[in-house]
C-alpha cells in the first residue's frame, strides 16, 4: 500500500527551549498574547471547538481575586488517546500554556484533572511539575500546578461536571450559563482547556500566530492530533493538517476495505463509504452538512464489521456513562438500546427505528449536557446509513 502521509511535527517536537519561550511570552503585554491566540484561529481541541483566545479574554475580564486554570486530561471519548501521549512526551508545553494563561487572567493555582485510567502517568508528571515550579520561581511567576485524579467517569470530561467532581460531588453537569469563565471551579472564574489546546498555545507563543493560521482551512486552523484505531494497518497518533477530506484520510489509513469511519468517537458521527469524498474533517461553520468537528478520534471499520454491533457497543457505553441526572439521557439511552435489540430480534417492526430516531432527536434538544445531546450523532448516522444491518 502506497503511503503518502503528510505528517506535521509541531506538537511532539521536543526542543528544550521552554525557559526562553516562557520568559519571552510572560514579558509580553497580555492583550498582545490574547490577540495572537485569537488571530491564530485556535479552537478547543477537546471537541467542542470554542475559540481559545476568547476564553482567556473572558476569564481575564472577569473580576475576582481568586481564579483557576485547569487542564482537562479526562480523555474518555472512545477512540481517543492523544492527550495521554502529549502528557507523556511534551508535558512542559502543556504546563507553559497553563502558566501563561494564569499570568494573563490572574490565577495562582492550576490543576491537571487526570483520568484514573492514566494513573500510571502521575509519578513522571509530578517530577515534571516540580521542575516546572522551579522554572516559574526563577521567572518570578506565582503559580502552582497540582494533579487532581479522576475516578472513572466519562461525564467528568464535561467541564462543569469536572468542577463538581473536584468539589467532591457526583460528576453531574451544571446548567450553562453561567460559563466557567465567570463561574467555574468553586464558583470562581476558571479557564479550562484540553491538553492538546494548551500544547498548541505553546506553538503559537513560539512561532507566532501566522505559522499556525497558515495550516488548515476556513474556520479550522492549525494542526490537529488524531487518534487512529480500528481496521487500519497503522493505528496510532498522528499530527495532521486540519481540514483534510475523509477520502484522503481513508486512502492513507484504511486497509483498502473501509466501509465507515467514526469521526469524533462514540459521541461523534459515523460516515459511510459513499460520503468519504464529500466529508471534510474540521469545524466548518456549524455542525451540519459536510464538515465534522472532532476531538481527534478516528475509528475505521472495514466490511467485516457489523454496524449493529458497533452501535450496540456505543449504546452500552452511554447507558453506563450517563450521569442519570436528566431524564432524556438516563431513560433515552436505555430505550435506544432496548429498541435496537427488539428490532434485531424481530419483536418490533423495522419502522420502530423511525421512532427511535425521533427519540434520539428529542434527546438532542432536551438533554442537559453534551453527553445526552450527542448520543443522536452516532445513533442517527449509523441507523440512517446502515438501516439494513440494524434489521437483518
Amino acid at each position, binding site marked *: 500500500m502506497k503511503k503518502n502521509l503528510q505528517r506535521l511535527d509541531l506538537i511532539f517536537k521536543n526542543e528544550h527551549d521552554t525557559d526562553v519561550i516562557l520568559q519571552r511570552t510572560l514579558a509580553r503585554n497580555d492583550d498582545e498574547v490574547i490577540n495572537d491566540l485569537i488571530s491564530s484561529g485556535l479552537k478547543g481541541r477537546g471537541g467542542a471547538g470554542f475559540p481559545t483566545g476568547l476564553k482567556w479574554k473572558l476569564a481575564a475580564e472577569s473580576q475576582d481575586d481568586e481564579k483557576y486554570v485547569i487542564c482537562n486530561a479526562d480523555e474518555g471519548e472512545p*477512540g481517543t*488517546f492523544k492527550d495521554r501521549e502529549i502528557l507523556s512526551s511534551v508535558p512542559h508545553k502543556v504546563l507553559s500554556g497553563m502558566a501563561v494563561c494564569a499570568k494573563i487572567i490572574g490565577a495562582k493555582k492550576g490543576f491537571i484533572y487526570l483520568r484514573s485510567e492514566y494513573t*500510571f502517568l502521575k509519578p513522571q508528571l509530578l517530577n515534571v511539575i516540580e521542575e516546572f515550579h522551579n522554572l516559574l520561581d526563577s521567572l518570578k511567576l506565582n503559580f502552582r500546578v497540582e494533579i487532581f485524579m479522576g475516578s472513572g467517569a466519562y461525564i467528568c470530561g464535561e467541564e462543569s461536571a469536572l468542577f463538581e467532581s473536584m468539589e*467532591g460531588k457526583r*460528576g453531574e453537569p451544571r446548567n450553562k450559563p453561567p460559563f466557567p469563565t465567570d463561574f467555574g471551579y468553586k464558583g470562581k472564574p476558571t479557564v479550562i482547556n484540553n491538553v492538546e489546546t494548551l500544547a498548541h498555545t505553546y506553538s503559537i507563543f513560539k512561532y507566532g500566530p501566522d505559522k499556525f493560521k497558515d495550516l488548515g482551512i476556513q474556520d479550522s486552523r492549525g494542526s490537529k492530533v488524531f487518534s487512529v484505531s480500528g481496521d487500519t494497518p497503522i493505528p496510532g*497518533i498522528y499530527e495532521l493538517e486540519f481540514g483534510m477530506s475523509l477520502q484522503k484520510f481513508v486512502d492513507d489509513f484504511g486497509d483498502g476495505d473501509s466501509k465507515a469511519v467514526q469521526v469524533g468517537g462514540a459521541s461523534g458521527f459515523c460516515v459511510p463509504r459513499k460520503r468519504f469524498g464529500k466529508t471534510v474533517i474540521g469545524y466548518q461553520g456549524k455542525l451540519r452538512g459536510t464538515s465534522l468537528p472532532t476531538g481527534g478520534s478516528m475509528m475505521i471499520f472495514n466490511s467485516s464489521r457489523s454496524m449493529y454491533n458497533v452501535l450496540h457497543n*456505543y449504546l452500552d*457505553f452511554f447507558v453506563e456513562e450517563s450521569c442519570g441526572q436528566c431524564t432524556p439521557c438516563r431513560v433515552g439511552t436505555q430505550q435506544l438500546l432496548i429498541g435496537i435489540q427488539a428490532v434485531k430480534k424481530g419483536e418490533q417492526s423495522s419502522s420502530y427505528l423511525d421512532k427511535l430516531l425521533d427519540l434520539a432527536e428529542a434527546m438532542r434538544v432536551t438533554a442537559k449536557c453534551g453527553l445526552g445531546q450527542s448520543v443522536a450523532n452516532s445513533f442517527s448516522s449509523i441507523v440512517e446509513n446502515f438501516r439494513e444491518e440494524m434489521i437483518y
Partner: protein
Amino acid sequence: MAEVKQLVKGLADLHGRSMESLLPILQGIVHQEQHISEDAMVEVARELNISAAQVFGTATFYSFLHTKPLGKYVIRVCKTITCMMHGKNQIIKELETVLKINLGETTHDRKFTLLETNCLGQCHKGPAMLINDEPYTELTPEKVREIIMKYKQQEINAN
C-alpha cells in the same frame, strides 16, 4: 473499625477536610483497602463534617470507587469498541480460565478481581487491560497467562 478510623483520619490530615478533599480521601481509601466500606463512609462524613449520604452519593458515582470488597489486584479489561473488535472476549475467556472465576468475581484467596471497564485510552494497542494502575496492551491469550503468572509468583515470593 479502629483501623479504618486511623486510615481516614490520616487521609484527612493529608488532604484536608474541605469538600475538595473528598475525592482524594475516597481514592486513598480505595488505594489501601480496594473498596470503601460503610464504616469508612461514616468515618469520612464525621471527619469532613458532612452527611454520610453525601459521601455515599459521591462514592457510588465513580466506577473506580467500589463499595463492595475487591481482590488485591483488580483487573479491568477494556470492553469499548476497538478493543472489542480486536478480541477482548478471548482475553476475558483466558482470564476466566487462568483465574478460575467468572467476569465480575473475585478469587477465593481474594487476590484477583476480574472486571470490564470502558475505554482505557489504549485503542491503537487493543485489547488492553489495567491491573490496578498498570496498563497492559496488545494482549494475546498467551501474554495474559504470563502476566497473571508473574503476579501469582510475586504473591508467593511475598509470603
